[in-house]
C-alpha cells in the first residue's frame, strides 16, 4: 500500500512536558485514520508538527514519500483546533484567499459552500457566523483543491447532536472518494463510528496503532478451550455462524453472529463428541477497553 504519511521517532517537549514522545506511525492511502487520546495527550501538537506550524525537537516525517514542503501542504486540507478566518471578510473572500494560496480556481468555492450548506451566506462576514457555521466553513476551506489528505482536529467539538451527525456523514462521504482522512478526537465513539484505523495516544506516547476492528471490536468474544485446541478449532470451523477465531494462550477466542448463544456452541461441540474444558463470555465494552488501554500504560 502507498504511504501517505510516515512519522519517525518524533519528539517535542514544552519545558517539562513531553508533548510528543518518540512517536512513529504510518498512514496508508485511503485510510480513515483516527488519533484517539484524552485532552492533552499530544494530538494537536502532533498535527501541528506534520503541518509545519510547530517545529519538532527531533525526529522526521514525510508526506507522500517526500520531505515536508509548502507544495506538499497544498495537497492537504486541514482544520486545526478552532476555525480560523479573517473575521471582517466574507466567507467567499476568505475562501478566495485560500484558493490563491493553494493555486486553485475560484470556481470551486461555490461547490464546497454547497457541500457544507453555506452558499446562502457566502457574502456574510465570518464574524457573523455561529460556531457550527464557522466549523462548516472550515470544512469547506479544507475541501478546496480536492486534497488527497484531510485532517480534522476535534471536528465535532462545540456542535449540537445534529451538527455532529452531519459532520460525521460528511467525513464518510468524502472518504468514499478515496481521500485519506486523519481525525483527532478524544471521543472513542467518534473514532469507532468513522475510522478504519486508530492510533491511541497518551502523554504523547503511542499505546496502540492498528485497525479499529482489532482494538475496538464491538461484539463479545467467547473464550473456549478443550483438551486439544487444534481439534476444537477444526470442529468449530464447521459451525454455522462463526465469524472468526484465534488462539490466545491456552484459549481459543471466537466471535459468532449475534444470534449465537454459548449454549449453542456447547451443544454443537458435544454433538461432535468434543467436551469443552472452558467456556466463558469476554465482555468487550468499548469504554472499558479504551480506559483499560489508557491505564495499562502507567
Amino acid at each position, binding site marked *: 500500500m502507498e504511504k501517505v504519511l510516515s512519522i519517525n521517532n518524533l519528539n517535542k517537549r514544552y519545558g517539562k512536558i513531553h508533548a510528543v514522545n518518540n512517536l512513529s506511525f504510518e498512514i496508508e492511502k485511503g485510510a480513515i485514520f483516527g488519533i484517539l487520546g484524552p485532552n492533552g495527550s499530544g494530538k494537536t501538537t502532533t498535527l*501541528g508538527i506534520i*503541518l*509545519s*506550524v*510547530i*517545529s519538532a525537537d527531533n525526529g522526521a516525517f514525510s508526506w507522500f514519500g517526500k520531505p515536508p514542503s*509548502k*507544495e506538499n*501542504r*497544498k495537497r*492537504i486540507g*486541514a482544520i*486545526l483546533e*478552532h476555525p*480560523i*478566518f*479573517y*473575521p*471582517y*471578510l*466574507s466567507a467567499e*473572500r476568505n475562501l*478566495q*484567499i*485560500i484558493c*490563491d*494560496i*493553494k493555486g486553485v480556481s475560484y470556481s470551486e468555492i461555490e461547490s464546497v459552500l454547497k457541500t457544507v450548506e453555506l452558499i446562502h451566506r457566502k457574502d456574510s*462576514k465570518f464574524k457573523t457566523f455561529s460556531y457550527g457555521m464557522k466549523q462548516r466553513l472550515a470544512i469547506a*476551506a479544507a475541501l478546496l483543491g480536492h486534497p488527497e489528505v484531510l485532517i480534522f482536529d476535534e471536528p465535532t467539538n462545540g456542535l449540537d447532536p445534529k451538527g455532529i451527525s452531519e459532520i460525521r456523514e460528511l467525513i464518510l462521504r468524502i472518504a468514499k472518494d478515496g481521500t485519506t482522512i486523519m481525525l483527532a478526537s478524544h471521543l472513542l465513539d467518534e473514532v469507532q463510528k468513522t475510522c478504519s484505523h486508530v492510533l491511541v495516544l497518551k502523554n504523547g506516547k503511542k499505546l496502540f496503532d492498528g485497525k479499529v476492528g482489532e482494538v475496538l471490536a464491538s461484539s463479545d468474544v467467547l473464550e473456549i478451550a478443550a483438551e486439544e485446541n487444534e481439534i476444537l478449532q477444526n470442529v468449530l470451523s464447521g459451525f454455522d455462524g462463526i465469524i472468526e477465531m484465534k488462539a490466545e494462550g491456552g484459549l481459543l477466542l471466537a466471535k459468532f453472529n449475534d444470534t449465537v448463544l454459548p449454549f449453542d456452541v456447547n451443544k454443537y461441540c458435544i454433538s461432535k463428541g468434543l467436551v469443552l474444558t472452558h467456556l466463558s463470555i469476554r465482555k468487550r465494552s468499548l469504554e472499558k477497553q479504551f480506559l483499560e488501554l489508557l491505564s495499562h500504560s502507567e
Partner: protein
Amino acid sequence: MIRLLKIEFKKLFSYKAFWVMLILYTVLQAIMIFGIPGLMDWIGEKSGDVSRFRIFKALVFNFPDIWQNIAYVASSRYFVKIILGIIAIIIITNEYHFLTIRSNIINGLGRGEFLAGKLEVLFVLSLFSTIILVLSGFYLGFMNSVSTTITHVFGKTVFLGGYLLELYSYLIFCLFLGILFKKTGVAFIAHFIYLIIEPILEFKLPDNIAPYLPLNGINNIVRSPNTSLMKIKIPGFNFDFQEAISFTDVAICIVWASLFIAFSWIILKKRNL
C-alpha cells in the same frame, strides 16, 4: 510576486481600519504639505507683510529645492509617517491575533512567501506615499517657482528616491516590531518608546556612533531642507545644508533594512505558530 500581492490586498480589501488609516494619512500628508503655503499666506495677511512670506514661499517651493524640502518634511520620524508605521504593525499583528498566519502556512504558503507578501504591501504603501509627494510637489512647485525649465523641475528628484527608501525602511522596522511582539498594543508601545529612547541614546553615545543607530540610520538620507538662501554663507554661521544624497547614508539605511528583514525571517522560521 503578483500572486502574493493579490493575496495580501484581498486580506485588506474590506478591512475598514486599514482604509480609514490610509485615508487619514493621505489627508494629513496633503494638509501638511499644502497647509504650509496656506498658513504662510494667512500669517502674511494678518501681519500685513505679505511680500516677505511670498519670498519665503518662493524659496521653499522653488524647483528643484522643493523636492528636498517636502521630502524632508514628510519623512520626519515624529510626523505623519507614523500612521503608515501603525498600518505596517497592524497588518502583521492581526495575522497573529486572528491566528491566520497559522492557517496561511497550513494551506501551503511558505514562511518566506508570507514575509515577502508583507514586504510587497509595505513597498506599495511607500510608493503610494511617494506618489502623493510627487503630485503635491508638482502642484506647489508650478504655483510658486520662478523657473520651470526641465533641469530645474527635475533636478533633485533623487531626494524622492531617498524619501522612498527611508519610508520603506521605516515600515520594515515596524513590521519587524510586529513580528517580534505579535501583539498590536505591545508593538505600538515598543515603537513609541524606542522613538523616545534613541535620541537619549544618541545623546549619551559618542557623536561618531549616533548616525549608525537604527532609526537615525533609516532616517538620515534626507537630512535637512535647503533653499538658495541657505547657501549664502554668513560669517559666524558656517553651516553647510545638505546639497546631495550621500552614498554612505544610503548604505547605512539599506544595511539596517536588510537586518530588520533578516531578523524577521529568523523569528518567523524559528518560532512555533
